[in-house]
């Protein structure tokens, strides 16, 4: 699989480490969220057959985190964004 890195262009997926569903970026607030919310965030997955937004870390590259959109039925990669940009678009500072 070739991941279209927004800064570096097409890169082999072997340069990356896979973490999982991009919803892992949305960690609940530890001071206010209950244990059930933390459980759901850490352990439960949608695990869709089809379009999946997921976190890849460019460990053997520029060490940026990407949100890659990929089809889990075909392995086709539909796009990649910097996770930083995705987080900022959600209103976070970093």
């Amino acid at each position, binding site marked *: *699989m070739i991941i279209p890195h927004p800064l570096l262009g097409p890169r082999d*997926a*072997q340069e990356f480490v*896979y*973490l*999982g*569903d991009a919803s892992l970026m949305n960690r609940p607030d530890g001071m206010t969220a209950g*244990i*059930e919310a933390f*459980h*759901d965030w*850490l*352990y*439960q*997955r*949608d*695990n*869709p*057959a089809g379009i*999946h937004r*997921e976190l890849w870390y460019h460990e053997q590259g520029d060490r940026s985190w990407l949100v890659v959109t*990929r089809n*889990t*039925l*075909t*392995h086709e990669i539909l796009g990649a964004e910097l996770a930083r940009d995705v987080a900022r678009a959600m209103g976070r500072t970093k």
Partner: protein
Amino acid sequence: MRYSGLRVIAEALTGHKGWKPVWRDPAPQPDYDIVIVGGGGHGLATAYYLAKEFGQKRIAVLEKGWLGSGNVGRNTTIIRSNYLLDGNEPFYEFSLRLWEGLEQDFNYNAMVSQRGIINLIHTDAQRDAFTRRGNAMILNGADAELLDQAQVRAMYPFLNFDNARFPIKGALMQRRGGTVRHDAVAWGYARGADSRGVDLIQNCEVTGMRIAGGRILGLETTRGFIGARKVGVAVAGSSSRVMAHAGLRLPIESHALQAFVSEGLKPFIDGVMTFGAGHFYVSQSDKGGLVFGGDIDGYNSYAARGNLPVIEDVAEGGMALMPAIGRARLLRIWGGIMDMSMDGSPIIDRTPVEGLYFNGGWCYGGFKATPASGWCFAHLLARDEPHPTARAYRFDRFLRGLMIDEKGQGAQPNLH
């Protein structure tokens, strides 16, 4: 029809005209007491034990393709009970004991071959860890032996004992481990269940679940609505897709695992060998092909095929362990979809929907579990309480902090 040597001889003398189809192909009834979703090894074993051991009637198994068309026919056929943790080892030892009596029990030749399995040791720390594991196995009634380098050399003189990175120092051996003809397991269970009145309904995909008042009423399928008092889902690989019909999210990711078979070679590997440090394991089939594999591909997938980097990694592991295989050609490579759970261990449990039960999360180790999985799931479905060896396989173990994490990797399914 009961199979026996006498029967084979009698049929041979009469032109083999007496063999009958091994199971019926019934149309679905409007409703059943218990419906099992998934006609693979685990689903068929569940139906078989429900009928045979738990006295249940009016059972159906729904399969979207043909019987045994999923992972039961796509694995590398290894059976073993060499686990460390209390939540796992009694269950897998129960499974190995069922394997030992399986062919007599369901009167079908599944080619259960207890040819022994070894896990190679490369360091003192690994020897300590495997000693502990072996002791845990023995404490749970399984067999385990620690082999030194000379003993491993006597068994497999052609291994690369002096590999600079991973010299072979010994092995943990379980002599009762081995291999089984995987398709025959599905066929044997299917035949046994069918002969006890279970309806095996093929080409019948579940498209929805009818739930009212928090209780399951039945299943919408491609062959119409089928009512059910209880529904057991055993569709590992597709668990999230099927359970989504009940609005449930699972602690599971689907990942692709590849398996490999070489061209047929003269017999030279008697047993099963795992080279964990090199992410490689191998056995030799009765036809002579080396059956081997390594890691999962490591990203969510429902594609039932993997990619080239893992193929390269597995081939490198094989060459590091056994340089002799360098000229062997690969015959086949294929992929299957695994339910990778958040702690690497399975789930056999009730769900929040009354009457709906779940069996899944088998990661890449479901085949060896087939008999015990079926037995324990049947126990849960019939009696509404978990089997003693499967008590730990609950959904809420993640909420309660009671994970069964053999590798200690945490909630990172692609590392289990």
